[in-house]
């Protein structure tokens, strides 16, 4: 059967449209992924399920207690809760924008399904529509999951009617459309004009600017005791000044917050108005993108796969490239090594094969900007917060608060590290992928490769975590004993978290997948995150409750060596067990892996 002219066929064909077919295929694939969970261990599934439920419950309790506490501020509670809501949605909007931009770019221009569909008689507009919907959902579902406990807590604190909850779901569905539209449009535009390297530079610059803006926008304002006693309203007003941007009425987050707030207060007319503003914008811009961006997407996809580096347009870059060794005069000349080789070879401490593997891992990590840009942002923001602590030393003069903030800082640092180890260290072994035979058959052996990955990741991340915790201790003005205690604790936690990630990464490898995001989103990655979080929670609570400075409002700061040592021994044993077991199991599996 030779196909007739498509327009003729289209008129006669009553089957599903290509878009519906694509949705159907995605639904079947997702459903089967879900069913595949049955093949996993029920114990591990129960652990993950309990963790997720635990997160929802704990987050809900914290938000509920926090909102109740704030709402009881005499005369100001309502105002503070309202501003918190607006700020939250403004930040959520910003994060959704970044997330949509990154995911849309990958999904539209670095995706094998897209290439496959482009060779079929499917209109580019339809391909774009499908990828737009897919990217928006991928970029947004986790945010909805994260924010659900907060909105539940907000509803309960405000004693809202039952219809508030389903309405919030509808509002969230509308809210995610606009960042999705902006992300898709921005990714198509950037892809048209920037190559991959330039895109990464723009992304990292944007993130750095974002951190800089945060540093500027949320710089602490000195408040005197006199101000606090006599001019509370003025102080609150100054504090709120920094967050006034969230009340800009043309921000979609403003419409969302205003609708949620008005509905919770029973002002259904005003809430409906803002909901309709959001609906009209979502429909208009959603329709605009779905109907008009198809050609632009095809043009951008063509440029992405057609151009050389845009840096090659610059004479200086071309001159630098020309200096790289090639085949001058037909004679092969290879470089003797760059600064990294010289650094790793310094003193001859590392064996040549070890050096080669470490250098390879470091180069691959460094050259993939997306591998470290998100991490840099997370730790950057944590750094900004810790640096700002120096402004609060007047308020943090009580040993109780100093101790509490120190432990929370260590916990936050460890949680950040857990996301880092799960996202980047866990998939390292899987990413060897089809190349695993190369290192597996080399004299170095797979077991040593896994050990090397563990040591490299541990030493590299220790520089960041230890640095941040020591900075925290310095900013809080802690003494040497405290500093050694927190520094030692975070060092142990860093090694443990890396052992968990490396061990589980070797235990649950996925050699078929080349995308680290997909490797992490599998069962092993989720288990790694859960285990890391459970370990951090247990470790921080153990250290805080039984440490010589823990939870005593009247403490004098006196050092109690016996208590400290016993706590530490328990903590070290727990850490050893939590890290050793997965690493041991992973190594055992690797030792028997058939290439």
């Amino acid at each position, binding site marked *: *059967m*030779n196909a007739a002219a498509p327009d003729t066929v*289209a008129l006669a064909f009553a*089957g599903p449209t290509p878009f519906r*077919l694509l949705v159907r*295929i995605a639904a079947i694939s997702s459903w089967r992924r879900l069913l595949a969970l049955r093949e996993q261990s029920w114990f591990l599934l129960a652990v993950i399920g309990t963790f997720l439920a635990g997160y929802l419950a704990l987050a809900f309790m914290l938000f509920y207690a926090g909102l109740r506490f704030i709402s009881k501020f005499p005369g100001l509670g309502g105002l503070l809760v309202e501003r918190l809501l607006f700020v939250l949605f403004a930040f959520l909007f910003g994060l959704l924008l970044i997330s949509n931009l990154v995911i849309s770019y990958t999904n539209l221009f670095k995706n094998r399904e897209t290439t*496959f569909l482009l060779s079929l008689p*499917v209109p580019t507009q339809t391909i774009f529509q499908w990828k737009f919907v897919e990217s928006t959902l991928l970029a947004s579902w986790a945010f909805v999951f994260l924010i659900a406990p907060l909105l539940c807590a907000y509803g309960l604190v405000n004693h809202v009617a039952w219809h508030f909850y389903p309405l919030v779901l509808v509002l969230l569905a509308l809210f995610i459309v606009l960042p999705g539209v902006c992300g898709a449009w921005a990714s198509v535009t950037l892809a048209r004009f920037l190559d991959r390297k330039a895109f990464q530079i723009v992304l990292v610059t944007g993130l750095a600017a974002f951190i800089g803006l945060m540093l500027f926008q949320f710089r602490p304002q000195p408040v005197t005791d006199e101000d606090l006693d006599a001019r509370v309203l003025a102080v609150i007003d100054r504090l709120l000044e920094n967050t006034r941007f969230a009340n800009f009425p043309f921000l979609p987050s403003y419409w969302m917050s205003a609708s949620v707030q008005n509905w919770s207060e029973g002002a259904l007319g005003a809430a409906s108005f803002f909901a309709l503003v959001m609906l009209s914008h979502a429909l208009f811009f959603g329709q605009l993108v779905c109907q008009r961006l198809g050609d632009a997407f095809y043009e951008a996809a*063509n440029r992405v796969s057609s151009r050389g580096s845009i840096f090659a347009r610059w004479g200086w870059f071309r001159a630098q490239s020309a200096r790289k060794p090639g085949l001058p005069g037909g004679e092969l000349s290879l470089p003797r090594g760059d600064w990294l080789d010289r650094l790793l070879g310094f003193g001859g401490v590392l064996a040549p094969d070890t050096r080669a593997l470490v250098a390879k891992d470091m180069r691959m990590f460094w050259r993939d900007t997306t591998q470290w840009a998100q991490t840099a942002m997370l730790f950057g923001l944590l750094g900004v917060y810790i640096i700002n602590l120096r402004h609060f030393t007047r308020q943090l003069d009580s040993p109780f608060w100093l101790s509490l903030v120190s432990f929370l800082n260590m916990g936050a640092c460890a949680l950040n590290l857990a996301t880092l180890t799960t996202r980047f260290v866990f998939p390292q072994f899987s990413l060897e992928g089809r190349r695993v035979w190369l290192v597996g058959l080399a004299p170095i052996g797979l077991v040593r490769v896994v050990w090397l990955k563990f040591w490299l990741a541990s030493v590299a991340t220790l520089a960041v975590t230890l640095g941040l915790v020591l900075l925290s201790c310095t900013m809080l003005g802690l003494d040497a004993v405290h500093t050694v205690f927190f520094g030692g604790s975070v060092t142990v936690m860093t090694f443990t978290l890396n052992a968990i990630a490396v061990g589980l990464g070797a235990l649950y490898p996925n050699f078929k997948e080349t995308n680290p995001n997909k490797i992490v989103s599998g069962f092993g990655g989720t288990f790694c995150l859960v285990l890391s979080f459970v370990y951090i929670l247990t470790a921080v609570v153990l250290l805080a409750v039984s440490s010589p400075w823990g939870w005593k409002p009247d403490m004098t700061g006196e050092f109690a060596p016996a208590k400290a040592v016993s706590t530490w021994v328990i903590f070290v044993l727990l850490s050893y067990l939590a890290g050793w077991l997965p690493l041991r199991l992973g190594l055992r599996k690797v030792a028997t892996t058939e290439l």
Partner: protein
Amino acid sequence: MIELHQLVKHFGDVRAVDGISLTVPRGEFFCVLGPNAAGKTTTIKMLVGLIKPTRGTARVAGYDVQGQPLEARSRLSYVPDFPFLYDKLTPWEFIRFTGQLFRMTDADIRRGADELVPRFSLQEWLHKPIEGLSHGTRQRVAITAALLHSPEVFVIDEPMVGLDPHHARIVKDVLKERALRGMTVFMSTHQIYVADEMADRVGIFHRGRIVAVGTPEELRRRAGTDGALEKAFLAITEEEVKADSANGTAP
């Protein structure tokens, strides 16, 4: 059936395809040979509409691939060297999905599958997840899905990768039969014996240009060799390398 007119493609400063003109008539089995980076895959990508030519046009069944993309793509099928398949689907679901994208009715899809599935020995695998299939079986699934709508033009890149000799024979037989029934085949391969056995005409690509085109016999005559087509291919490409060196255009 396939008309390439002065096709040029630049990747930045690199000229990957340099003014290729070629006509492949209906029912011809055309093989493309060439060393790495000769422009074979780039030409195929322009032919199937995956990338735009910098200059020139590609037409399939009379339709401009860029100007009338849907008309052109509905008449061709493309199987790359590592075809994309949905891992969580079964081969039958994938074949049916592809047929539906080509606007085939369920009855036509079943009819086409009844012919092709046994030919490619896929019955055993038809309802098992694709993620568990070997590379060769995946390749057969992709070729079955691509042939289902009886395309007028079939473009395939390295079809024998991962296929055992038995199934490689079947693929060659099916493609030859289809060509005899009027399907134009445009195949890129590094396996010169396959081109020698199958092709009505062979085009040799070198540095983005077609440096020789003709039947295997014509190419042998031109190179002054006999026996395997490989000798002719090596002689012609060697000749081009020398000419490039003499002209100072070698990379």
